[in-house]
Each structure stands twice: as structure tokens, then as C-alpha cells.
């Protein structure tokens, strides 16, 4: 019956109650949304590469190695010998390797020289592999496969001819105009840096630089076709490579072995460790987002206090009536608390619905424009904790007007001195 009275009373103050519910719902949706995006960004980040046990490159900063190998950010300082690569590749504990050769770009997108292992073994977000949307993987020396975003941006399709440029800046003056590449395929979107890369063969990477000396092209442009046959091209260096062991337990041992590789100054990095380290340095952004959503929540809770507080005067009469009709002061207070709890609960419930509706509609947009992959999943324990906190906050917010009502009621007795 108390429920009935509360319901009637809330109905009587429809607009303010509704505004309260809406503000709680919005702050709940925002808080959870930020939480989802935070996790989505982190997972997207750490899941850019999976199943790879070690990333191997020239000695230097481990973070840098991960950045240029996986994220195509920054420039590699040194290359490693191809012979070192083939030697390590044939270690008995190695399952597979993916060579990566960097240094050129196509209109600002990095060119990655690699081999068919990339398409066979590269995994992201658990066990998702790279798939070709249209065409095939690069086989010939002048074959190129475009990441989804690159192809979308320049509307390239199979059999287009493109010119790669030397160096990695967007406006490179030096173009490999004497070695045009043919687009043989476009990759499916992955929401990872793969989408923003251009893939050629290791041989293609070498062929690009035929006749180059000291970073500039030699005057004469004619290169004999014989030299450009794939089997005749000798690969001298690559930038780095990804490696998976047959048995994960061997990773640390192998890492030590590579770090002390006698013929080449190599370094092996466990990607997960490096990625977490990198994410930690970015986490201040995360904290700012979190703080903002907490502020929004605080505003929502304050609106509950304000709404209950402003309705308190008109309810003084109500409270005196209830008192006269035999309800104890505790009952009056619990009526107010019940009401604020009801408002907060409804707000939370609608907020959750808003979250999922929002996720459903915004997801494709975030995935294609920001490479942010947000799975639609049940509420996590952390999120339940947030909701519990909000509920607790709401009850506390309801306590303030309830205490005020208690005081009024003590003072008023049965006569209202408004």
C-alpha cells in the first residue's frame, strides 16, 4: 500500500520525477559507455596482435620495436640481417615466423614487406586471421595488397597500378616511379593497423630499391628484367619479425637466446608485456574520461537531492497528514527514501537500456571510423560495482531530504508552519 502511495505521489510530480530519472539514466549510460569504450580501446590495443610470442628486431627500445612493428608508428632505427632471420626461423622450438620489412609508404600509409606467413599465421583479437576481401595475396614481385582503409580512401581495386614512395612521410619527394606496383587484392577490415597498411613481398621491397645508393636513386633508370625475377632477388635485410614458439614455455628461454644472438645485435620482446607497459603510459586519458563520467554522475545524484528537496515543502502537509493518521516518523522517512530509491533504480534500469541501444547503433560507426571494437556483452563485475555505487549514492542522496523531513516533522507536529 505504501508502494501505491509512493507511486501516486511520484505521479503527482511527474515532470520533476521524470527529469530526475532521465538525468540518472543519462549519467548511468555515460558512465557505463565510457567504461565500455575504455575497455574497448584497451582490448583493441592489446588485441591488435595475438598468438605472437615474441617480436624480434634490432637492439633498441622495446616499446619502439612494438610501435613500429605492430602499430606502424615511428621509424625503425636499424634493420636485421635476413640470414639471422632464416637461422632463427629454423630453430627447433619455433613454430612460425612472420618477417616485416618497413621503410616506404603509399600516400602516408606504411608499406610492409612480408611473405605469405602473414596471411597464414597473423592473428588479432584472439584467433582472427587476415582475410582477403577481393583478389589474392601478393605473390609476384610487383604485387601489392591494400589494407581496407587504404583501399576505401583511394577507391582502389584489383589491377589498379600504384606508385609507392620512399620514406615514411606523407609528402615524400622521392617516388619509386620506375617500379609501379599492381594491386592484386584488398583485405577485409580488421579494426587494427592492418587496415592502414599496404603489403608487398620481401622481394618487392628489395626490388623497389634496386639502383638506389645512399638513400637516393641512381641516375640511370634501366634495370634488366632478368634482375627483377623473384628467384634472382637476394634479400639482404628485414626490419623485424614476429615469432610463435611450438610451446609457450619455451618463450623466455628463446628470448634469452635471441637477445644474446652472436651474429647480429637482436632483441626479442614479449608483445603482451610491452603493450601493457605502453597502455599504462596512455592511461591518463582513461582516467580523465573516468573523472568526467563521475562528475556527470554527481550531477545526476545532486538532481535527485534537489528534486526531493524542492518537493519537500509541498510534502510537509502530506507528512503531517500521515503523522496524524498514525504513521510513525520512521515510516515517513522511509517513504521518502523509498521514493528516491525508486527513482534511482528506474534511472539505472533505463540507463542500462540506453547503453545497449547506444552500443547497438554506434558500434558499426566506431568500428569503421575509430577502429574501436565494442562487443555487446553482459554487464561486467566492475560495471555491477558501479551500479551498486550509484544506487548507494542515490539512497544517500535521498537521505538528505529525508532527514530534513524528519526535522520538519518533529518541529511541526500536526500543524504545518510553512
Amino acid at each position, binding site marked *: 500500500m505504501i508502494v501505491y502511495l509512493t507511486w501516486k505521489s511520484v*505521479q503527482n510530480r511527474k515532470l520533476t520525477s521524470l527529469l530526475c530519472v532521465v538525468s540518472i539514466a543519462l549519467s548511468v549510460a555515460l558512465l557505463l559507455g565510457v567504461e565500455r569504450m575504455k575497455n574497448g580501446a584497451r582490448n583493441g590495443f592489446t588485441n591488435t596482435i595475438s598468438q605472437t610470442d615474441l617480436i624480434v628486431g634490432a637492439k633498441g627500445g622495446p616499446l619502439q620495436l612494438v610501435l613500429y612493428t605492430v602499430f606502424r608508428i615511428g621509424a625503425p632505427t636499424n634493420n636485421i640481417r635476413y640470414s639471422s632471420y632464416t637461422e632463427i626461423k629454423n630453430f627447433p622450438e619455433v613454430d612460425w615466423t612472420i618477417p616485416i620489412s618497413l621503410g616506404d609508404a603509399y600516400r602516408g600509409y606504411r608499406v610492409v614487406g612480408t611473405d605469405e606467413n602473414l596471411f597464414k599465421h597473423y592473428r588479432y583479437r584472439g584467433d582472427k586471421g587476415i582475410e582477403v576481401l577481393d583478389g589474392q595475396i601478393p605473390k609476384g614481385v610487383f604485387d601489392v595488397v591494400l589494407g581496407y582503409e587504404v583501399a576505401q580512401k583511394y577507391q582502389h581495386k584489383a589491377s589498379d597500378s600504384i606508385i609507392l614512395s620512399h620514406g615514411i612521410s606523407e609528402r615524400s619527394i622521392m617516388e619509386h616511379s620506375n617500379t609501379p606496383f599492381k594491386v592484386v587484392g584488398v583485405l577485409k577490415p580488421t579494426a587494427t593497423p592492418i587496415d592502414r597498411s599496404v603489403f608487398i613481398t620481401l622481394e618487392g621491397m628489395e626490388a623497389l630499391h634496386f639502383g638506389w645508393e645512399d638513400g637516393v636513386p641512381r641516375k640511370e633508370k634501366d634495370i634488366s628484367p632478368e634482375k627483377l625475377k623473384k628467384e634472382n632477388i637476394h634479400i639482404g635485410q628485414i626490419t623485424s619479425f614476429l615469432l610463435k614458439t611450438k610451446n609457450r614455455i619455451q618463450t623466455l628461454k628463446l628470448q634469452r637466446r635471441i637477445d644474446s644472438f652472436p651474429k647480429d645485435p637482436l632483441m626479442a620482446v614479449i608483445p603482451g608485456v610491452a603493450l601493457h607497459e605502453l597502455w599504462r603510459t596512455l592511461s591518463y586519458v582513461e582516467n580523465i574520461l573516468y573523472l568526467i563520467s563521475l562528475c556527470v554522475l554527481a550531477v545526476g545524484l545532486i538532481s535527485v537531492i534537489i528534486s526531493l528537496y524542492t518537493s519537500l515543502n509541498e510534502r510537509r502537509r502530506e507528512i503531517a497528514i500521515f503523522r496524524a493518521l498514525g504513521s510513525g516518523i520512521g515510516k515517513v522517512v522511509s517513504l521518502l527514501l523509498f521514493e528516491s530509491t525508486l527513482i534511482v533504480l528506474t534511472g539505472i534500469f533505463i540507463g542500462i537500456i540506453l547503453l545497449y541501444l547506444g552500443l547497438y547503433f554506434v558500434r558499426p560507426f566506431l568500428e569503421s571510423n575509430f577502429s574501436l571494437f565494442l562487443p555487446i556483452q553482459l554487464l561486467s563485475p566492475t560495471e555491477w560495482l558501479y551500479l551498486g555505487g550509484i544506487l548507494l549514492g542515490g539512497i544517500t542522496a535521498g537521505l538528505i531530504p529525508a532527514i530534513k523531513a524528519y526535522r520538519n516533522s518533529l518541529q511541526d507536529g500536526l*500543524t504545518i508552519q510553512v
Partner: protein
Amino acid sequence: MKPAINIQNLSFHYEEAHPILELDTFEVKMGEKVFVYGPSGCGKSTLLGLIAGIFLPQQGTLEVLGLDFGSTSKGKRDEIRGKEIGYIFQTFNLIPYLNCLENILLPCIITPQKKDKITKPLEQEAALLADHLNLTDVMHKKARQLSVGQQQRVAAARALIGSPQLVIADEPTSSLDGKNTNEFLQLLLREWEEKKFTLVFVSHDERLAEEFNRSVSLPEMNRIRK
């Protein structure tokens, strides 16, 4: 038989420095209808709050319906008020968003003991009272749509439902015009004739006193003078 209200040597204050009420003796017999003359500022609200068990005196005896309130728990006092005391306010104090019927039945919603007292179906009980108080036609109107006269009669019905032993009317007619005052008083007294509850009727309008068994003046009883 114990008196309905028995007050002896009572004193009450909200703040120690400002005593509000000091009464030597005030007694109301069971079934008596008493007129209390009480202009504003004489401690009338406080006295009614005490009788209703909202406040407790700092000194003296306060017995209501045979119960010594001084030694009765707050919960028990609330229960007695809900069950056996009907209260009519000066300003009607209906819940504006409930309809007439819901307002009359409100005590039964708030105090389950009140509901248990009523043997008839609640609706029937309310309808009977409404019939006595000329409210039958407006039972499903919202309280805020009623005229002042109707509102006060709804308030009376609310106070009378479940046959309380004691009815306190706090200036029930001061918001009504002459015609409504008369009508209200006659209906209330007719209910009293029928049910013989104890009626404490407070008003600043001394002309109404002649309708009652007895008339007392609170300013004369209260030793605290303003």
C-alpha cells in the same frame, strides 16, 4: 470508567527558556463533546499534539484513552493515534492527487490496525460515511476538485472511519463560510449522537460553544501567558 483525556500538572516546552504550556488539570470524560476556546498563540496546537501523542510533556501526567503516554513507547502512541484517534485539521489537509474515496480510506492504508477494526468491506464503510456526510456524488473526484465544504467533510469522514474513540477537531470551521460551518457542525454532531465518540472541538469562534456539553477556555487554563 477512565476519562478519555486526563491531564494533571502538565508542563511542556520546546526550548527550556520558553515554556509553552502549563496546565493544572484538564479532563474529558469518555463520550463527552467538549468545546475548547483557543485563539491563536495560546498553545492550542501544542496541546493537541500532546493529546495525539506526537509530543511528550516534560512534566506531569498525560493519559489518553486510559493509557499513560509518559510511559508509552513512541510506536505504541503512533499506533493508538492511528487506531483510536481521528484528527480533523483546520486546513482540511487532503492528499490532492488522491480521490475522495482514497482520501477517506487513507487511515486504513497507513495503519493496518485501523483496517482490522473495520468488519465491513472497506468500500462499504466509506460509502456509509459518505452517505452521512453528503459526499456520495463526489466519491471519485480528486480532492483538489472539491469545494471547501466538501473537502472538510471528506476530512471528517477520514477522521471518523473505523470508529475512533476520540476525535480531535482543530479549528475545523475557520476556513469555512457561515453556511458551510453550520452544515459541517450539524453533520459532525449527528455522527457524535450516533457513535458517541469523545469529541474535542477547538475553535476561536465562541458562538459554536453552545452546541457542546461543556466549554473550556485554553487561555484561562494555561498558566503561561503571552
